[in-house]
């Protein structure tokens, strides 16, 4: 087998290993559970936000240190107003109706939740297939509306990374203290 093939195979194994750890942490955190996720959207249980904010805080500081040392290359997604606002709101409707998101539904399946394994999974695939069918019509229209590319907050404000990382870190800590 060629070296490139071996490398690709190794990465698939890494993907599986990282997934097992991710799923383990999601389940231990409680967010494979419908009640916890919908509780967040009803603002009665802040577990989801606490997990997300703690992950973003830890990840953001680490990644920007690694980036400063040239150890990682970040890959911010490009976006547009039409893409992220409309898509985000549609996603939110599904988030509340289904009570799982694409990552936590995988965790919910592992947890034995059959509404996730049957209805939820079928629905997500139908929705994604429907989008693929409509994509040629959306691609140059609404998805390009207000296009801003792979912009990051430091580039938007024309400052160095740390001028954004530090205030965002402080804001996240304050939010975590308040939740």
């Amino acid at each position, binding site marked *: 087998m060629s070296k490139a093939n071996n490398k690709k195979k190794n*990465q*698939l194994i890494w993907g599986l290993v*990282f997934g*097992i750890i*991710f*799923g383990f942490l*999601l*389940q*231990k955190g*409680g967010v*494979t559970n*419908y*009640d916890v996720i*919908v*509780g967040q*959207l*009803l603002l009665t249980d802040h577990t989801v936000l606490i*997990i997300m904010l*703690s*992950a*973003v805080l*830890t*990840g*953001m500081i*680490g990644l920007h240190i690694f980036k400063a040392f040239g150890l*990682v290359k970040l890959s*911010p*997604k490009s*976006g*547009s107003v039409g893409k992220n606002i409309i898509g*985000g*709101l*549609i*996603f*939110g*409707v*599904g*988030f*509340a*109706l*289904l009570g799982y*998101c*694409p990552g936590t539904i995988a*965790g919910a*399946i*592992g*947890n034995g*939740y*059959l509404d996730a394994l*049957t*209805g939820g999974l079928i*629905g997500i695939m139908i*929705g*994604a297939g*429907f989008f*693929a069918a409509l*994509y040629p019509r959306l*691609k140059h229209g609404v998805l390009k509306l207000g296009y*801003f590319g792979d912009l990051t907050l430091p580039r938007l404000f024309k400052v160095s990374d740390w001028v954004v990382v530090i205030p*965002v870190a402080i804001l996240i800590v304050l939010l975590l203290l308040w939740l």
Partner: protein
Amino acid sequence: MDILSAVRWSPYLAGIGIGILSWLTFLISQKPLACSTTFARSSGMIEKAIWGNKVAEKPYYKEIKLGIDWQFMLVIGIILGSLLSALLSGDFQWQWVPSLWAGTYGSAVLPRLIAAVIGGIFLGFGSRWADGCTSGHGISGTMQLAVSSWISAICFFIGGIITAQIIF
């Protein structure tokens, strides 16, 4: 070990763990934690199995490339990791209707399944429209300070909170 058999960890601990995990995915695999494209690929692969190879020529499937990739394995791993965690703690259970849903809509299976299918359609469609989900945008994208991800993540919650208030 007690910590492995605990039903719940502190959400701060779980979150910090996910943050450290994303350092590793970037350092080792040059990739962010993200899930939703896998469902579009799966959908495309099922379509392809039914309708034949021409499905792979659809512009969207050409762009995301159908097949088993790193992220597909990540999603399979999530199922296994959650199963492992739930088995170790005894939190595993077969359940059709979540209790919060049952409290408002009753414990009949069919209404819950219909809501799950409709919710799934919105979720699958919206995650492709926004080009990311709660992990890809909400965690991995926001930590990279991507403008697209901050906007998306805020909109996920605006849409979700409004919808949840309406249905409960």
